[in-house]
């Protein structure tokens, strides 16, 4: 390990500790962040977010044009780009990717594989299941070598964010042919065998600054090597290794021992000590939200606004921020962080005030409220470093205003996720990290239709959501989002709690990548100093 | 008719081995065709080397091990075929005294519960007071202090423990007591106390004994009749005085001459029959006469091939040897190195 750090030349190995294993080397088959962290270094998208920000900027497309109705998207492609396998990047290659996705059949149509495609672009050329949404993708038309037009059936707020999404990164035409040659994934819903090409390095090829060379599942390492033919600034290190480290302490100690050069998800209490010891601990911009969920059906008293208000007033968000969250964390007052466009400055506030809370409880006829409160154990999320602790604080808050809280600890997966999703928990804590800068990615996820996690039906709210989702004009949408935020907070379906920026840590001799609120760091920026 | 009569008793223990399920691959012929009679009020002594099947025979009589074949007739009933509850009921009439007075007493039971257990099992003397009186009477009989009732076995000396063991057998007022090496584990001085006690009890209560021991002197001391066992079978049986005066079986002769006598005069002057080798395995007994492998008088014919029957040779004297008469008559001489004269001992 040490010789690597001392050698100073640029053919060095950079080892990064990731909190989980990737699932697939083909990002279009994946839905998880750990997969995307890896594939983002290998594959590139038409558009991307500006480094360190949430603004959408051109990537493989040098520029793009949106038709006023938002149905036609013209991309002017970058020239002189080649895939890792030597194939040229051009309009035909782009369309080959879109057609691959659009024409997926059989097991590929399962949400297990094409979850993000379905979310971003709807269904397929031929939907095989009733549950698959109607296709929104209409066509991809090359206009010459470097111009391409993508048409959709109707405008959706997922655009243009979809074109930045890692799941829609572009593969080389040769590799797509190779994928097609392989038998499709086998198995039933939930139990699929990933196609071989997505499990071993060699077939997949993108345009990114790194090439995939090895995935050692036993050692839980993915190895990438510098793409020396990269069109842009070449990667700062010769070799990039993502090593899975699930245990936060192990990550920290590995960094201190010099075995790794950086890791993600630094525990809040480790941030300051690491900084004090001279390590670089850049903090991302906040792009997530932790909230207290309420299910109005399992606990009818929650259907009363007074009771929900009482709970909101009872909670001391700031004490959570102070004691449990990393530097840069803030208390939230609506269902999105302030970094998202559409954030409203004028939402109704429910300040911490136990006395008001008690009164509201009385008004709601819930003085003796006794309520089940679910929380996950054995898990740490970027927006929620130690759920049991946060639960304890919330519980103490609620008990202080006379609510009896019944602990319902559960294991994160699948128990907790199942229970909260199915509406079995009257109170629960959970959160969301945004995929791209679009308010719909936050509030739309929760409030656009009836959701068993909330258990309420507010037709007006649902209709307004549908409207904003179909509005192609960006500026108009932002205003509508602000209004919606006010509307939601007026209704108060749950209590937004906090937004906390997850931190990364890097060794002293590393020039770290620009942190991204979307956790979309570009490791090509990394180099040793 | 005798009180206890054993006829052609066989106890074979299977030797098991197998791949998935155990399969019998042979037998230990622990007791292999024994017949004997014990008269009411009499004492039958059984001697023999370690492993020759004495204990097994004693246990088989009590049906503590399963009998392979043969009969054990007790007071007209065949115990060998009895099972379950009837057998359990019958047990009150035959009792056993064990070799090791410590291991045969449950260390966690006090004397009173040791003694009352049998009574309870047979529903005898239901009244608590009467039961206690009976137990105390028994204690008196074996010479234990009355205060012993509430004490535990480990608080007694070896001799006293053996007394408890005897008392346990006595409380049920049995007809027959089988004593399996009752004194082997005791010091000589205590051994004498216990032997005397057994004799006294027999005189007072009219008990019938089957006494098992490896010490010929002890057996001879208390028995009326002695059976000498060798490798699962009885090779000689005679009234005890007769046996000492005129042992007829070569094995008995050897055994007799091997018993040390605490008297230098005798020791220095007696002739010894020294046996070569050890007791063969009962799992693989020699053919013919079981003793032929070690017998100084072994003959070329019959010994190796034919198993001798126990035959009457005199007044109550039975021998299982083809050549008993010839040996007695001096027609057959032992191998020269087997007999050690008195002179060799006189070296010092």
């Amino acid at each position, binding site marked *: 390990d040490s010789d690597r750090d001392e050698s100073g030349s640029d053919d060095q190995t950079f080892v990064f500790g990731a909190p989980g294993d990737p699932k697939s080397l083909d990002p279009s088959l994946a839905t998880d962040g750990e997969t995307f962290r890896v594939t983002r270094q290998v594959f590139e998208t038409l558009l991307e977010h500006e480094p360190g920000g949430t603004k959408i900027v051109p990537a493989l497309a040098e520029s793009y044009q949106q038709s006023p109705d938002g149905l036609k998207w013209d991309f002017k492609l970058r020239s002189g780009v080649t895939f890792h396998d030597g194939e040229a990047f051009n309009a035909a290659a782009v369309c080959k990717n879109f057609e691959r996705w659009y024409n997926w059949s059989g097991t590929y149509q399962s949400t297990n594989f094409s979850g993000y495609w379905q979310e971003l672009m709807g269904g397929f050329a031929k939907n095989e299941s009733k549950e698959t949404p109607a296709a929104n993708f209409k066509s991809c038309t090359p206009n010459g070598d470097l111009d391409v037009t993508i048409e959709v059936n109707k405008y959706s707020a997922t655009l243009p964010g979809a074109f930045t999404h890692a799941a829609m990164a572009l593969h080389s035409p040769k590799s797509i042919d190779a994928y097609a040659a392989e038998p499709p994934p086998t198995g039933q819903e939930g139990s*699929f065998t990933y196609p071989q090409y997505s499990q071993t390095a060699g077939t997949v090829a993108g345009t990114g600054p790194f090439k995939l060379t090895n995935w050692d599942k036993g*050692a839980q*390492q993915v190895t990438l090597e510098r793409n020396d033919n990269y069109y842009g600034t070449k990667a700062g290190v010769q070799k990039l290794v993502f090593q899975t480290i699930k245990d936060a*302490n192990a990550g920290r100690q590995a960094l201190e021992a010099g075995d790794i050069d950086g890791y993600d998800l630094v525990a809040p209490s480790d941030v300051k000590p690491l900084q004090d010891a001279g390590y670089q601990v850049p903090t991302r911009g906040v792009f997530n939200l932790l909230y207290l969920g309420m299910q109005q059906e399992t606990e009818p008293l929650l259907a009363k606004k007074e009771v929900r208000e009482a709970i909101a007033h009872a909670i001391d968000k700031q004490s959570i921020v102070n004691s449990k969250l990393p530097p840069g964390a803030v208390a939230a007052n609506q269902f999105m962080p302030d970094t998202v466009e559409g954030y409203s400055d004028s939402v109704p506030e429910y300040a911490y005030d136990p006395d008001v809370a008690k009164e509201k409880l009385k008004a709601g006829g819930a003085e003796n409220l006794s309520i089940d409160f679910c929380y996950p154990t054995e898990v740490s999320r970027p927006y929620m470093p130690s759920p049991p602790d946060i639960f304890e604080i919330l519980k103490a808050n609620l008990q202080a205003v006379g609510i009896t809280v019944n602990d319902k600890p559960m*294991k994160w997966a*699948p128990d907790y996720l199942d229970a909260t999703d199915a509406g079995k928990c009257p109170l629960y804590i959970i959160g969301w990290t945004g995929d791209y800068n679009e308010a719909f990615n936050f509030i739309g996820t929760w409030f656009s239709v009836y959701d068993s996690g909330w258990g309420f039906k507010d037709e007006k709210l649902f209709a307004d959501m549908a409207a904003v989702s179909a509005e192609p004009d960006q500026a108009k949408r932002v205003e509508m989002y602000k209004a919606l935020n006010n509307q939601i907070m007026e209704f108060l379906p749950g209590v937004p709690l906090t937004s906390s920026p997850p931190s990364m840590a890097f060794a002293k001799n590393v020039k770290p990548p620009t942190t991204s609120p979307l956790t979309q760091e570009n490791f090509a920026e990394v180099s040793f100093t | 008719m005798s009180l206890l009569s054993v006829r052609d008793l066989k106890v074979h223990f299977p030797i098991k081995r197998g791949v998935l399920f155990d399969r019998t691959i042979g037998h230990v012929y622990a007791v292999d065709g024994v017949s004997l009679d014990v008269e009411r009020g009499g004492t039958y002594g059984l001697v023999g080397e370690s492993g020759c099947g004495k204990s097994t025979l004693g246990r088989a009589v009590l049906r503590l091990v399963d009998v392979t074949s043969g009969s054990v007739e007790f007071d007209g009933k065949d115990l060998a075929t009895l099972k379950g509850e009837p057998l359990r009921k019958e047990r009150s009439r035959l009792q056993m005294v064990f070799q090791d007075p410590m291991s045969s007493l449950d260390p966690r039971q006090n004397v009173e519960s040791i003694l009352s257990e049998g009574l309870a099992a047979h529903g005898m003397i239901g009244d608590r007071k009467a039961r206690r009186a009976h137990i105390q009477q028994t204690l008196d009989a074996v010479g234990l202090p009355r205060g012993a009732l509430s004490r535990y076995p480990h608080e007694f000396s070896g001799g006293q423990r053996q007394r408890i063991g005897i008392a346990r057998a006595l409380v049920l007022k049995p007809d027959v007591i089988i004593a399996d090496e009752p004194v082997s584990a005791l010091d000589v001085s205590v051994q004498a106390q216990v032997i005397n006690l057994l004799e006294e009890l027999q005189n007072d209560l009219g008990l019938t004994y089957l006494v098992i021991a490896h010490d010929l002197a002890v057996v001879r001391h208390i028995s009326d009749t002695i059976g000498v066992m060798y490798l699962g079978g009885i090779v000689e049986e005679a009234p005890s005085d007769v046996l000492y005066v005129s042992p007829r079986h070569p094995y008995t002769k050897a055994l007799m001459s091997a018993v040390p006598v605490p008297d230098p005069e005798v020791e220095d002057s007696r002739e010894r029959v020294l046996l070569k080798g050890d007791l063969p395995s009962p799992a693989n007994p020699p053919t013919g006469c079981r003793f032929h492998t070690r017998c100084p008088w072994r003959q070329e014919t019959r010994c190796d091939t034919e198993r001798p029957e126990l035959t009457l040779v005199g007044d109550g004297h039975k021998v299982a040897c083809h050549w008993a008469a010839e040996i007695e008559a001096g027609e057959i001489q032992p191998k020269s190195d087997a007999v050690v004269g008195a002179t060799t001992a006189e070296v010092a």
Partner: protein
Amino acid sequence: MLRYIVRRLLQLVPTLFGLSILLFAWLHSLPGGPEAAMLDVRATDAKRAEVRAALGLDEPLIVQYGRFMKRLVRFDLGDSFTTGTPVMEEFGRRFPATVELTVVAMIIAICAGIPLGYLAARRHGRIFDGLTVTGSLLGICIPIFFLGFILKAIFAVKLGWFPSLGRQDVDVNATRVTEFYVLDGILTQEWDASLNALWHLILPAIALASIPFAIIVRMTRASVLEVLGEDYVRTAEAKGLRENTVRGRHVLRNAMLPVVTSIGLLTGGLLSGAVLTETVFVFGGIGSFLATAISNRDYPVLMGFIMIIAVIYVLINLAVDLSYSVLDPRVRVR
């Protein structure tokens, strides 16, 4: 001898058979059923039924079991529900790490435990003895995550003697033959790789060894104490043999007998108990995979793992018995 081995191996059959029935019934009786792991929570009942039908979960248990057994005899443990890869393949990739770790841990536990236990017995009732007994207790009591953290804090972070994670440095280019890294290095004569892998094994192995070490110390101590009181040791002394002869030939050899038995069982236990160590030391291995399988109710993986562990248990026991019969002629098998 061969007959005996065959016999013992044949005994595996009923044990495994019983175990499979038991496991099968048990796993299928858990709430949620196997399909719970495979479905999206929002799945409709229709979808659920569809999956159940597809998996054959509607059929009577006995039919399902039959199918399971049919695959089993072909050494096919099915595919993992969570990764979709054949269970055998997943194990093949991860088990070597666990085995390597276990073996080194046991070597450490044995090499440290037996001499210490022996010395403690020789100094029975003195301070050294007391310290050893108490010290071995700490080995049992300190949780592995804590011990692991401390070990790393001292030897990896502070002193920098050992690496804090992984099985091999990332920049070691080793050829993989068997997935046993140390062995691979030896086979391919890449000594550096082998040494590097060994180096990575030390700390996790020490952490994992803490419990077996403590048990071995105590067993050796008790066993030596017992043997020291045996008549044949007195005989050896009466023969005027040199002290070392008495110790080595007469005391230790006999004292090892019960220790060997427990070493076998401990090894089996470690194989399934290495989860925490593997997590703390980021060691790969079967542990974390198994933990995930458990929480996801990944039935094929669980079944496969338990069956494999059962086989290993039996094999280890056989090995123990065989080595026992080498060490102790009294139990020599025919």
